[in-house]
């Protein structure tokens, strides 16, 4: 048998117990870890080989239990039952054995081959606690291996234990059925018998486990066993009755409901096992964290410190980020210039220079700022501060009908809406995820900044900075108002409860923070490489075609004739004709036609038709608004003062607009439909229906607000 044997190992466990750290140490992969419960929201797969086995390692989301109530828990249990991994490694936070082993019991009841990984063993030893490994091994009937996940200690032993288990060299290995007391046990035996007799299919779930879940009132399992789909009709109705009877019976006999009795049974078993094997810690591992929190979540200092940290984060993002952004900008300009001179003038070179380099370049310059923001967020998350920020912000977020945890995606929204939408997955309830995703785009992402800089720079000169700041504030305030409105109308169900663990503060590792940042930055880059590239090309095409050969010929001949004349007046006339020619080309193009078509819709807002078009193309990515305006106003972007000439064109009394309209335009860009990539992400996260709603409401909001501001402003004579 020269062929390598294959094996699947799944990592399960409580949130923030270190599963992803173990996964990374095993596979050398770079998944995102974070000192923040609920970081891994989808399962991730990696491959290694060990002792002649090809091993597939699966990192599962963190769960406290295996109920049908939350998505993660359903993912984990159906993965274990459907995919049948050879071994499940339960990654346990040794600092809180009681709660962690409570899940171990449930995993054992699923009849899996289990290895218990006592992770965070370093912290455990530091507190002076002791655990009799031999005893706990025997009591649990599963091998136990201490590890330090982020340092890779004990990983070999962990893999060895898993392989031993598979090769059946494990001595204590047995499935200990947990007793829930004579009452419940009898009822379970009876239910199992009925399941067997009725020929009910539990879709791979062990019968006893299914029976327990029926007593716990697990909807999914009840539906499976009693809906008649898995069983003949009479058997299923008999089962339903039997389960109901058993539940009633338990509550009469014990004075508590079945769900509680079963929870207590599990934790009672764990407690018993720990009483025999665990020597309690000398010190509290939260001791240091609590001292830190005496300052950071202090009644008086908490908010000032929080605000100061946010201020620093934004300073770093926008002030420090401006330097590398400047370098990238000159790099892009240089590249465009070089290409323009190197290539013979043709449609292809125009496509390359203005379409590809111009389009993608206008986006890539934001990468440094976004990476800095994400780096800061990663640092705050990995240190444990973000959980405290959620703790501080919950009261305010709750007033808006949101959740303390909504705060992190909203913060990320200032960088890029797309990764921010992905980050809503750490919210537990679907209602909160939808609401947060709906108002997230109102946090002005960095792609919108160049539009503000252009327009505010053109109309508000030295007060430009204040005006831009004001736009950001308007975004936040609007988000608050909309949040309240939605909470009062669309989402009147009670918001999700705020149960969140505050992990101990930990010093973030450089590797951890960088991986974390990169995971999200990557999403931004992917958006650029894909959608923006394609969109830039399409846009260029729409702007360059159709080309009426006869018109071009006439103009070119006329211009050539004037130039040939050689007189000063003729040259001037040629210049005029040339710009007329360019304008004519744009107006005749598809974009120009579209602009003319939508002009009536944007005229009441004080916008020019060029601006109307730029709003449409801005749907691709908001930074495209600027490049579109550049094209439409024929300002040569490749010159160093390209921005300047565009600003001048905007102000120009002939084709330009008023400052009031400029302000309305900034508001429109702030509020209207997010870019296509964000819309796609919205659809993926909350479904097509809500995506349509998101697009619709924001468009309406933007139009109404801009209309109101412009018309009222005009009335009062601005």
């Amino acid at each position, binding site marked *: 048998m020269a062929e390598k044997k294959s094996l699947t190992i799944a990592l399960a466990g409580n949130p923030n117990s270190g599963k992803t750290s173990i996964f990374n140490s095993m596979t050398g992969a770079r998944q995102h870890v974070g000192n923040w419960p609920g970081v891994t929201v989808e399962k991730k797969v990696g491959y290694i080989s060990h002792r002649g086995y090809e091993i597939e390692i699966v990192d599962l989301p963190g769960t406290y239990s295996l109920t049908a109530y939350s998505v993660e828990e359903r993912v984990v249990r159906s993965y274990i039952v459907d995919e049948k991994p050879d071994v499940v490694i339960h990654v346990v936070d040794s600092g809180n054995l009681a709660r962690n082993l409570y899940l171990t019991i449930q995993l054992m009841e699923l009849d899996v081959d289990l290895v218990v990984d006592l992770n965070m063993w370093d912290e455990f030893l530091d507190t002076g606690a002791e655990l009799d490994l031999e005893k706990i091994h025997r009591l649990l009937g599963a091998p136990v291996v201490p590890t330090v996940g982020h340092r890779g200690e004990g990983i070999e032993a962990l893999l060895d234990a898993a392989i031993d288990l598979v090769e059946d060299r494990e001595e204590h290995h047995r499935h200990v059925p947990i007793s829930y007391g004579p009452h419940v046990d009898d009822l379970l035996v009876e239910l199992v018998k009925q399941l067997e007799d009725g020929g009910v299919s539990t879709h791979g779930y062990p019968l006893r486990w299914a029976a327990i879940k029926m007593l716990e009132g697990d909807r999914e399992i009840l539906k499976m066993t009693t809906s008649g789909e898995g069983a003949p009709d009479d058997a299923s109705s008999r089962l339903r009755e039997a389960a109901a009877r058993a539940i009633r019976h338990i509550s009469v006999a014990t004075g508590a409901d079945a769900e509680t009795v079963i929870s207590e049974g599990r934790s009672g078993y764990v407690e018993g096992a720990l009483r025999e094997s665990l020597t309690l810690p000398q010190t*509290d591992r939260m001791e240091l964290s609590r001292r830190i929190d005496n300052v950071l979540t202090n*009644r008086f200092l908490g908010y000032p410190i929080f605000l100061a940290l946010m201020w620093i984060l934004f300073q770093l993002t926008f002030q420090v980020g401006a330097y590398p952004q400047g370098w990238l900008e000159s790099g892009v300009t240089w590249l465009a210039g070089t290409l323009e001179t190197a290539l013979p003038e043709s449609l292809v070179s125009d496509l390359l220079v203005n379409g590809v380099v111009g389009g993608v370049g206008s986006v890539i310059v934001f990468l440094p700022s976004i990476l800095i923001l994400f780096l800061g967020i990663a640092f705050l998350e990995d240190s444990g501060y973000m959980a405290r920020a959620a*703790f501080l912000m919950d009261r*305010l977020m*709750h007033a808006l009908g949101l959740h303390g945890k909504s705060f992190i995606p909203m913060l990320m929204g200032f960088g890029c809406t797309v990764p921010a939408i992905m980050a809503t997955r750490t919210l537990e309830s679907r209602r909160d995820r939808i609401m947060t995703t709906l108002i997230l785009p109102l946090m002005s992402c960095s792609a919108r900044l160049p539009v503000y800089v252009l327009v505010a720079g053109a109309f508000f000169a030295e007060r430009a900075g204040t005006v831009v700041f004001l736009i950001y504030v308007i975004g936040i305030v609007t988000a608050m108002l909309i949040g309240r409105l939605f909470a009062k109308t669309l989402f009147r169900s009670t918001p999700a409860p705020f149960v969140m663990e505050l992990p101990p503060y930990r010093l973030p590792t450089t590797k951890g923070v960088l991986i974390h940042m990169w995971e999200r930055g990557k999403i931004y880059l992917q958006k650029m490489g894909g959608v923006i590239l394609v969109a830039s090309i399409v846009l260029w095409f729409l702007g360059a075609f159709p080309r009426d050969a006869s018109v071009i010929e006439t103009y070119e001949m006329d211009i050539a004739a004037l130039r040939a004349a050689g007189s000063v007046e003729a040259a001037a006339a040629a210049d005029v004709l040339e710009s007329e020619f360019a304008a004519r080309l744009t107006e005749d193009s598809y974009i120009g036609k579209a602009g003319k078509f939508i002009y009536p819709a944007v005229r009441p807002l004080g916008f020019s038709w060029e601006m109307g078009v730029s709003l449409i193309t801005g749907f691709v990515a908001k930074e495209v608004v600027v490049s579109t305006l550049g094209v439409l106003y024929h300002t040569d972007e490749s010159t160093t003062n390209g921005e300047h000439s565009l600003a001048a064109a905007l102000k120009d009394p002939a084709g330009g607009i008023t400052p009031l309209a400029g302000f309305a335009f900034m508001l429109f860009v702030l509020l209207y439909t997010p870019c296509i990539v964000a819309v796609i992400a919205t659809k993926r996260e909350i479904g097509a229906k809500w995506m349509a709603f998101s697009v619709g409401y924001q468009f309406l909001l933007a139009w109404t607000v801009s209309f109101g501001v412009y018309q009222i402003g005009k009335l009062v004579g601005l």
Partner: protein
Amino acid sequence: MTADPRVSLATLNPGEAAVVVGVQGEGAFRRRLLDMGFIKGTLVRVIKHAPLRNPVEYCIGGTHVTLRLQEAQQIIVEQVTPPPYCRTHDDRGRGRRLGRGRGRGGTWLRRNR
């Protein structure tokens, strides 16, 4: 004077401790509380309130968990003397002797008289 010793967790002040008697309500949230360790017989200690009073940080089984007061209301407890672990700010310098006072328990006593 001794009425029902059972109160809701929400009535406790920072520094005070109690033993869980039961969790009221039903459905997903109640189950979550059970799974997080709010099970009969478990010791809970109030660590602190957020600056705006809500939510509240609790220490349970060596971990710190936050709940809003509305949610803590569902948890029925019986007050006990704070243990040496799960210490709070108020304990500073008091050593780790068992049976120290109730932190700001004075208000609790007054309110429940």
